[in-house]
């Protein structure tokens, strides 16, 4: 297998993009990535999209998007793994380049969620859970994570305030991110007084419903310098699955797919959690970030809340988490999130993160999770 590098990135602003359709936002992000990389042609595309069908009634993105990007007849593959669709697109693109099958591949993600009412989007999002045994019974995504949060509080003493601190931190970071959906800071009080969504989780514990697209261009590492002075190498890829339903797990506070995927990524990269300089993790809800930093091995199980409280995860902390603002502040267009996480790490490793810059960032990790932990893909990136 050849080494693979990222040579260009591009994304739309994330938010409620009323004026733009699914195909509009994908093409915008893809063109930015192509321009940023300087490539003249691409050999193939991988697109992460959770549900064009449920949100806008559009499938067959594998034809629509290369058509509107003007790159037919190249092969295009739409992949889906709920909220981990974006990272899955990158993983598949990586394999196609690493194997020697293609040279220049675009890995993108797109989701257009605001064309339907919120409660219809809730129905669509529930497709990432077990439709017949969780969603049918009345569960929503905030509900699933609320079940995890309450159990985490019961087993480890994690507090309501510690959850709120995740949100406060991520908004502070997101305020410095021009592409973020929410560029305002929030206070602990605001989080604790925001509307209850699924007790104990409140509005400001939950990532929003967002439109957005993001794309990266990858090529064999040996060609990277033809296109950019700052190529970023993909040194670790880990992918694992777990039960779709929360009820089929022994311990709902440990997301085993995160543990397994990160183990595989660390092994491939030949590094340990301590070697990571920053990570973009999947904070679909505040509790998810707390579980992620435990399950990725950055802190001991049960100590995620404490670590957040002690400031370990701030941009200038011991292990900066979600310098982009995370899903909470940047937004969560489901299929695009995984790619957007990669774009932040690339910017950080290139030293181009502006006010969000983590000092001396050499190795970064992205953690993209589907549903309530049914699938996870972890990537580890390093300055070349």
């Amino acid at each position, binding site marked *: 297998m050849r080494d693979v590098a990222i040579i260009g990135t591009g994304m739309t602003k994330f938010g409620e993009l009323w004026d733009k359709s699914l195909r509009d936002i994908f093409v915008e992000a893809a063109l930015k990535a192509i321009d940023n990389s300087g490539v003249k042609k691409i050999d193939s595309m991988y697109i992460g999209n959770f549900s064009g069908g449920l949100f806008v009634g559009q499938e067959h993105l594998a034809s629509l998007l290369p058509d509107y990007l003007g790159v037919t007849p190249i092969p295009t593959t739409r992949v889906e793994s709920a909220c981990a669709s974006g990272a899955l697109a990158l993983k598949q693109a990586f394999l196609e380049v690493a194997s020697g099958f293609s040279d220049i591949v675009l890995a993108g993600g797109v989701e257009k969620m605001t064309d339907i009412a919120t*409660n219809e989007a809730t129905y669509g999002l529930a497709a990432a859970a077990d439709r*017949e045994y969780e969603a049918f019974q009345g569960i929503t995504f905030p509900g699933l994570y*609320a*079940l995890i949060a309450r*159990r985490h509080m019961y087993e480890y003493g994690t507090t309501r305030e510690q959850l709120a601190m995740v949100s406060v931190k991520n908004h502070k970071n997101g305020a410095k991110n021009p592409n973020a959906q929410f560029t305002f800071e929030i206070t602990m009080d605001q989080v604790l007084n925001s509307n*209850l969504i*699924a007790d104990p989780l409140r509005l400001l514990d939950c990532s929003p419903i967002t439109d957005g697209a993001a794309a990266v261009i990858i090529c064999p590492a040996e060609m990277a310098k033809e296109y950019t002075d700052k190529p970023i190498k993909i040194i670790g890829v880990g992918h694992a699955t777990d039960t779709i339903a929360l*009820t089929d797990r022994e311990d*709902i506070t440990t997301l085993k797919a995160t543990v397994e995927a990160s183990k595989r990524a660390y092994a491939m990269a030949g590094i340990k959690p301590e070697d990571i300089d920053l990570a973009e993790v999947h904070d679909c809800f505040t509790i998810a970030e707390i579980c992620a930093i435990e399950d990725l091995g950055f802190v001991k199980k049960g100590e995620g809340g404490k670590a957040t409280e002690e400031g370990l995860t701030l941009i200038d902390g011991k292990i900066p988490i979600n310098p982009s603002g995370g899903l909470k502040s940047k937004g969560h267009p489901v299929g695009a999130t995984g790619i957007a996480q990669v774009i932040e790490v690339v910017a950080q490793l290139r030293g181009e993160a502006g006010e969000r810059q983590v000092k001396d960032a050499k190795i970064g990790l992205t953690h993209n999770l589907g549903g309530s932990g049914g699938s996870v893909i972890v990537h580890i990136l390093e300055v070349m």
Partner: protein
Amino acid sequence: MVTGVTVPKTWREYPQRYRLEANQCIKCGKVFFPPRLICSKCKSREFKIVKLPEEGKIFSFTIIRTPSSEFKEYSPFALAIVELDNEVKLTTQVVDCDFKDLEIGKRVKLVFRKIQEDGPAGIIAYGYKCVLAKL
């Protein structure tokens, strides 16, 4: 718009939703709800039908305040993961209770209730919810 209540699917789920039918791996004894074709633990493909116990305890719970459209008239409602007496866990609503009475560890009993309807003219999907057990 597709709803969760379509005729063949609702009918096919009766053994589980009406009668709590699970299956048990004959080789290693693991119980699956809903029933499976292959045991995820020992990979055996031989099962026998078993009925789940109707009592258990609350493993975790939440109050759903922003449900998807089919549950609008019930909002807000309590939803729990219930650990039944045979250690199988279910996702189910908790009804006939004050939210403040919910606690991890409290005993509950499963009851037969309406879960969803396909509007006022469509079919009714019945199934299981739970109530706090009297001590």
